[in-house]
């Protein structure tokens, strides 16, 4: 938490300095991630924007804790986990453990990290080689790292099988003969074979039956206690995260939106994104009335994240620019949707055939801006300072210049959320270790409605 609670860590220069951040780190910090970026297709043959799967992430993992990583699918949480175990190459930033930067390891040092850090995969159907016996599968890491003698390896595999709730004689069975839950136990046994310190659990239960999920989670918690493991638990199921994690990081579009101790974060989420995420969790009690925040649209493409706050295109608590307070919620929503349409259009590079269709006056796949605007604004009347920029931008879009259309509307109706990326700010009580990435946390933008008084999950 040393990095996070200070706020804005990815922009502050001292955070780039490994030794510096190390000296200030707590003793119980196992792993420090600093400004980590993992982009795909960075050096693509044909240029184009890289996919910013992880785009500037910083946090610490404490020894012995379970750190949860939650977010919608596609937010980059799996990529982050894979980068930590070096299945993906980091584009920028550091992952520091004991003064070593994981992202630059090679040779023997890398091989040591491949022993100290393990990963449990999401789909047990795909993560086990069906042609090998369960014993061979679990033994393979031991063979790779030349662990003791072959006889001792076999004995260790047997012990591991027992330890994860299987039986010794399953050594010579094949994965085909096991159920999903049992296969995941095999996957866990394989990850634990070489006595790692740090285990990335990449949605380890989401492919399993609900009845089996609890068993696997309990097993993981028992193993953690017994073997002194540190977990990075990746999940999209919030109730699972609440059950198992000590601290939680909420990710959206490659960035951490909120970070803090699990119970506090679930009881009193600070970030608008966390709030909407939590409000989507169903409660078992149908009589409880809650405000459900349903998010509009889909996350933007990680190839082209928004300029300001990454969540600005969908945020229910987005800050309005001064002078537009009179506009109704619905009117403002319509404008936001219209901006989303423009965004969609400018993002899609029309293909050759689409360009040809456009030239020939045929209908193209992309939504027609004028049509969309007509639908959105049909029954609405706006004051002239809103109506004018909208009209101008529709015209610009009709000329095929979506970029310009967006500029017009952002200049007139955009707010700080569209212009500035918020940094992670410490929230809550000073020693709570919580932080959140939102402009609303600054006093000048504080939202009277969203002061955090509502608790979606009590």
């Amino acid at each position, binding site marked *: 938490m040393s990095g996070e609670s200070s706020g804005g860590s990815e922009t502050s220069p001292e955070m780039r300095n490994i030794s510096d951040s190390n000296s200030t780190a707590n003793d119980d910090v196992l792993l420090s991630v600093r400004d980590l970026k993992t982009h795909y297709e960075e050096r693509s043959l044909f240029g184009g924007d890289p996919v910013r799967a992880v785009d500037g992430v910083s946090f610490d993992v404490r020894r012995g804790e379970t750190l949860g990583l939650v977010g919608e699918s596609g937010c980059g949480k799996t990529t982050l986990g*894979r980068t930590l*175990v*070096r*299945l993906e190459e980091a584009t920028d930033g550091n992952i520091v453990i004991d003064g070593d930067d994981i992202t630059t390891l090679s040779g023997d040092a*890398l*091989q040591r990290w*491949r*022993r100290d850090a*393990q*990963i449990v*995969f999401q*789909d047990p159907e*795909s*993560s*086990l*080689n*069906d*042609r*090998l*016996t369960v014993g061979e599968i679990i033994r*393979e*890491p031991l063979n*790779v*790292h030349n662990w003791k003698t072959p*006889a001792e390896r*076999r004995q260790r595999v047997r012990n591991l099988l027992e330890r*994860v*709730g*299987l*039986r010794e*004689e399953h*050594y*010579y*069975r*094949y994965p*085909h*003969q*096991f*159920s999903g*839950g*049992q296969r995941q*136990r095999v*996957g866990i046994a*394989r990850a634990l074979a*070489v006595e790692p310190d740090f285990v990335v659990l990449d949605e380890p239960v989401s492919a399993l039956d609900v009845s*089996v999920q609890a*068993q696997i989670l*309990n*097993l993981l918690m028992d193993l953690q206690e017994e073997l002194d493991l540190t977990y990075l638990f990746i999940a999209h199921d919030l109730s699972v995260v609440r059950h198992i994690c000590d601290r939680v990081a909420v990710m959206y579009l490659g960035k951490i939106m909120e970070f803090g101790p699990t119970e506090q974060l679930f009881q009193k989420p600070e970030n608008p994104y966390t709030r909407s995420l939590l409000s989507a969790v169903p409660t078992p009690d149908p009589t409880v009335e809650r405000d459900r925040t349903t998010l509009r649209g889909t996350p933007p493409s990680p190839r082209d994240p928004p300029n300001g706050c990454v969540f600005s295109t969908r945020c229910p608590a987005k800050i309005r620019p001064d002078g537009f307070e009179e506009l109704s919620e619905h009117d403002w929503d319509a404008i936001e949707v219209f901006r989303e349409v423009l965004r969609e259009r400018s993002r899609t590079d029309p293909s050759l055939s689409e360009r040809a269709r456009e030239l020939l006056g045929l209908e193209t796949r992309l939504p027609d801006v004028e049509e969309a605007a007509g639908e959105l604004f049909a029954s609405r009347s706006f004051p002239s300072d809103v109506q004018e920029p909208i009209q101008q931008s529709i015209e610009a879009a009709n000329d095929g210049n979506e970029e310009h259309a967006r500029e017009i509307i952002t200049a007139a109706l955009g707010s700080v959320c569209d212009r500035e990326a918020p940094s992670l700010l410490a929230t809550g009580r000073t020693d709570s270790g919580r932080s959140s990435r939102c402009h609303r946390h600054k006093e000048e933008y504080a939202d009277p409605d969203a002061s955090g008084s509502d608790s979606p999950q009590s």
Partner: protein
Amino acid sequence: MGADTDVGSGSTRTGEFREEASRPEGDRDLPLSERITRNPGPAATWAAVVAVLIAAEFGAIVSGLLSVPPWGWVGGLVPGVVEPVAALLATVAERGAELPTITSRSVIDNTGYQTPSGWEGTTLGLSPAVAWALRVAVIYTYSFTWLLVGWWGYTLYRRHYRIPDWTPRDDVVNRFRRHSWGLFGLTIVFAFVVMALFAPVLGPTTVDQNIENPYENRIDYYNDETGQVESIFVGEANGDTQSRGQGDNNVGPLEYDQYDRFHPFGTLPDGKDLFTFMASGARVSLLVGLTSLGIAGGFAMVFAMLTAYYKGLVDLGVVIAGDSIQAMPQLLFIILASFVLSDTWIAEVYNGGLVLAILFGITGWPALWRAVRGPALQVSEREWIDAAKSYGQRPRVTMQKHMLPYVVGYFLIYASLSLGGVIIGIAGLSFLGLGIEAPVPEWGRAVSAGQPYVATQSWHISLIPGILVVIIVTGFNALGDGVRDAIDPESDIGDGGNENVAAGGGA
């Protein structure tokens, strides 16, 4: 932990699952030799049967194994050191060939002549046709016994010595056993392989006597006019037994000629025995076919593993190399290259067979590689490859252990399909008078020789080799089909695997 609640689910899926079999617990983890020592009964019985089978053919096996390498050529490579060893091995091979075996020509001799009192010279005075048929029957019985003993050994191993009760391969084997079309293919292919292996003893006469050196060998025959047993050069006799389509100039299938020689397939236009020619030709076809497939398959598999594992530029490079080769017309390129190489030392190995094998191999790998590239890429995307990488497994081991087993099945399918294509290709080249040097028997040359007589009573010269080629290529295709259905791609690589193999076709 509730882990046992669904142990049984495996049994319903595989149908082969048994609770820990009767094997004692102590057998776990022991090497195979230890497991056999603890329960020697089944293995000993099996070994005894195998020993009998080997003893029955000991001489032939020794000479057969040792005569495959061209010793004269090997010795010539490094004179002094290797030469004596090579010469010794060649001698051992010759001596071995002299040892009697149950399939020797001398055990059931079909060469003799008919006197008014009966057959002279043949075993037990049988007619040459019966004696020859008997020998063929013995050879095939012996061979198929080997096949059964091999299968029996596998089942013994499975029942008594293998530690897992069930492996994924068991399902493959079981599916193949129920696949009658595949079994038909296997039978044909096996019969063809036996024909190639036992070529020297299968024919009613030998290549040396009848085809290569007819003027160095004499045969006895009974002259009706003089009433005497006379001797004649094989070459002269052949001159009188030609099949040239008109008048009496024909010796058809299953006929005797005037020198009392039996010709199961009739004679060639120059009077030589067609069956002997075919049996020996099978050997050449199979040898060249398998060698070329070994070369092509080696390239294909290595490239498939590398391109699937590393992707990107490696893949692109191999794609370009493969496309460049495939852009050339294969047969024309082979004709040109074999002509260019015809005066070099390499053209003399196996009468030009090695050159053909290499050329077919070099031009054939891109097709094989393309066939296995899809499955290889699919496997490389599976998470267990990532898992292997995450705990630091070396790329070579990952390819070998986690990718190759999933691709080998596909490779076998395409290999069996393309082997038929290679056999047709070799025959086609010989038909054009290229490839294997005359007078070494090659099927295509028989088809070519019989071409002018197709519409005459000597139709057999072209037709029989042609039909045999068709049957054998069909057999290889059937075998490939059977293997494809047996490996059931759905259970291995996931959806979509089916289409990848459905469009197989080598010839």
